[in-house]
């Protein structure tokens, strides 16, 4: 279904979505963008890139799995566990970027499959993604076109809005999208033929503006297979600080830890929670004997790149990197995966 | 504040002086509020700031560290170190916005049973109006 929506009636549409809980990027006084529940306040849409991707709504940093409690009845101790599945209201994330929606589409693969992850799918099934096509590249390190994405890709999105000056061209790809549109039918008009031409031109134009490029990404994935023991990883990871920024802020990174958090030791009461985890921390793979298959920064940088540019392709036949550029922009020491992968491509050339 | 609210205080008492002082108060049957969970330590200098933050994190409404008067320390200078380190802790907690009355330090010698009871009485009196401590507390 394709419609157009006047820009001036955009905030009315948001108000009409009262039965959804609406997340919208909000800018704080320091100029940082982050998702926040939309209140009645105005909706400013000159967002470029949020620091934390929409992943934090679909795959929150803390998810309670179950609660456990011991009760003392006389001298008999009984233990019960109570499963805690999230109760999620229908949600809509407005302002997601096409690359972040592609990342959600990849998380669907990981959390689907043979063992479906009930916690993820409770949220995912209730959440609609309304994306903005990137007429201006959100970051100077965007390279989505190099990893089979584009500034107007539709995977993972329910609605794609493209800015045509005074109105948005609305493309809805799913039933969820149609429901969002029908919630305020009167605001949407049928697209005029020249609007269709305009949106095609806008999309083509936006692809040319992507600032960074990773040439021949697929052959790099092939070449990575032979570079497991290359000294390149040691050289490139010399300046790595071993923090978790590149993985926590990556829209497609999904590694997690499961740990028990005790509120009251006796009688025992607490919860089992899932929290984000990162392959960059030493504890991630350390055996209880102290042996660590990935003992140093080099092996962890290698793991981060191989997982995204080789392993994920071998299993799901698509890159796990969506080219949003966050890990490049926000790395405190400027480790640039495009530069590292360029070196892999040109290695031995 | 609900009249029946009873603040819970964690008191780190140095074994040689303050803990002995609190024993003297007990042996002499002195009356003082039962809100204190005493933890005996070998010296006030052995109190790591982590214990204080953790006590507040696990639900303490007030934390007291009590050691020997300067010069009485069984290990000569433990209380001098404590004086400097815990002063920094107090300033940091205040700076972050925790009510200043919640963290107290005192010198109580083995003979000062009455002083110990007075300190606890004053501490409970000061904590009552503040209500339960929710700032550092784990999911209050």
């Amino acid at each position, binding site marked *: 279904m394709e419609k157009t929506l006047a820009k001036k009636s955009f905030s009315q549409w948001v108000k009409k979505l009262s039965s959804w809980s609406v997340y919208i990027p909000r800018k704080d006084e*320091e100029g940082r963008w982050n998702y926040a529940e939309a209140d009645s306040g105005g909706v400013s849409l000159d967002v470029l890139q949020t620091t934390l991707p929409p992943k934090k709504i679909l795959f929150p940093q803390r998810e309670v799995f179950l609660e456990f409690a011991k009760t003392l009845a006389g001298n008999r101790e009984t233990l019960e566990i109570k499963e805690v599945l999230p109760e999620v209201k229908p949600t809509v994330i407005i302002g997601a970027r096409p690359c972040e929606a592609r990342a959600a589409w990849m998380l669907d693969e990981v959390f689907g499959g043979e063992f479906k992850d009930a916690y993820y799918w409770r949220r995912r099934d209730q959440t609609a993604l309304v994306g903005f096509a990137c007429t201006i590249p959100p970051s100077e390190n965007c390279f989505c076109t190099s990893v089979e994405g584009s500034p107007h890709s539709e995977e993972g999105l329910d609605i794609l809005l493209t800015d045509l000056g005074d109105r948005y061209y609305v493309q809805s790809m799913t039933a969820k999208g149609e429901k969002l549109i029908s919630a305020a039918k009167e605001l949407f008009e049928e697209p005029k033929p020249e609007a269709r031409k305009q949106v095609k031109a806008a999309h083509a134009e936006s692809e040319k503006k992507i600032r960074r490029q990773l040439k021949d990404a697929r052959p790099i994935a092939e070449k990575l297979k032979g570079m497991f023991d290359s000294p390149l990883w040691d050289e490139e990871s010399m300046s790595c*600080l071993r*923090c*978790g920024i590149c993985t*926590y802020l990556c829209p497609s990174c999904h590694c997690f830890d499961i740990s028990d958090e005790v509120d009251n030791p006796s009688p025992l009461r607490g919860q089992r929670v899932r929290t984000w985890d990162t392959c960059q921390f030493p504890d991630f793979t350390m055996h*209880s004997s102290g042996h660590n298959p990935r003992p140093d920064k080099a092996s962890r940088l290698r793991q981060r790149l191989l997982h995204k540019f080789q392993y994920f392709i071998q299993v799901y036949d698509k890159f796990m990197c969506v080219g949003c550029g966050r890990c490049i922009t926000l790395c*405190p020491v*400027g480790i640039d995966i*495009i530069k590292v992968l360029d070196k892999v491509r040109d290695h031995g050339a | 504040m609900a009249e029946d609210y009873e603040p819970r205080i964690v008191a780190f008492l140095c074994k040689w002086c303050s803990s002995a002082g609190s024993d003297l108060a007990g042996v002499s049957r002195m009356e003082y509020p039962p809100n204190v969970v005493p933890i005996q330590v070998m010296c006030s200098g052995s109190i790591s700031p982590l214990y204080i933050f953790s006590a507040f994190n696990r639900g303490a409404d007030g934390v007291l560290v009590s050691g020997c008067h300067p010069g009485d320390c069984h290990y000569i200078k433990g209380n001098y170190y404590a004086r400097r380190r815990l002063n920094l802790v107090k300033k*940091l907690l205040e700076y972050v916005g925790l009510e200043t009355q919640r963290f107290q330090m005192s010198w109580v010698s083995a003979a000062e049973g009455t002083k110990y009871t007075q300190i606890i009485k004053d501490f409970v009196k000061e904590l009552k109006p503040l209500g339960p401590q929710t700032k550092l507390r784990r999911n209050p």
Partner: protein
Amino acid sequence: MAKIEDLKDEARKLLREGKVKYIIGYGAGSNGWPAAPLFIKKPEDVDKLVWDPTCVHNLVRFLVDEKRRKARQRQPDKRPVGIMVKGCDSRAVVVLLQEKFIDRNDVYILGVSCEKTGVVDDTKLAKKLPGKKAKKIEVDAQNRFVVTTEEGKTEVAAAEILAERCLECKANFPVIYDLLSGEKTKRSLDEPFGSLQKIESLSAADRWSFWKEQLDRCIRCYACRSACPMCYCDECVVDSINLAVTAETTADEKAQRIRWIQRSAESSENLVYHLVRAIHLAGRCIDCGECERACPLDIPLRFLNKKLEKEAKELFGYEVGFDAALPALVSCFRDEDPQDFIR
């Protein structure tokens, strides 16, 4: 800003004579910020060294990684490592020497002087030139910053985009060095703890809501701990993220290890983590500002350590990072240390 030709010559000589293993310096970055850490092993790469107001990183952190790498090797190469240090960074080297973490001949210090200016704060720059990306930043004769972006050059007064710590700088040229590039110029400094006033002047309730709102945003990526040259413990007491287990660690030690805070990024756990980190930096933090710069959410962490630095000076007359022979702040005392807060 010093011209570093003499430093480059020294660097080439050191590498040619094999006096140092490699040199840690600043080179061109590629992620949008002009400068980035650079490791040089070969003399011909020395030309890549740059020195300009975007060299904000504190490279002393990599001395910690060097020590860890040597500890893992069976026959480590004992030669020193060359390192480019600004004034503030050099005080970090002093603290590492003071704490005997590194030995003086582990490191060959190539000092650079900031002279009249200092380094740029990325947030201030982004606010000053919104939407534009700086390609290059230089200092002109009148010590103003000349920022080159895609649209050309713009001149900015230094004070507008200087990093907060540079405005309160205590050492605009290195206090310890094997070679110093640039002049030992005196600088008119702002009020030493000026930036702290705006928080200290708040009421207790406002300070609490300020810190709670800031630390609630923390996602515990530990960039602040990873970027800090003083945070070099193999096993951080606060969390089990980097448990240092060796073959000799017994099952009991692992089983009884106390988890002081939970792994979830809840506000109470974030607060305790940052409080413990701040108190562990009392009398050790030299205000290089890396924790705040590295934080992806720009949480003003510097103000936690700055407060304790101010208390250390006012209460105990203790200054950090100038004298490697000084005992640590918390392992010494004075008779006249204040005790008014003790009953």
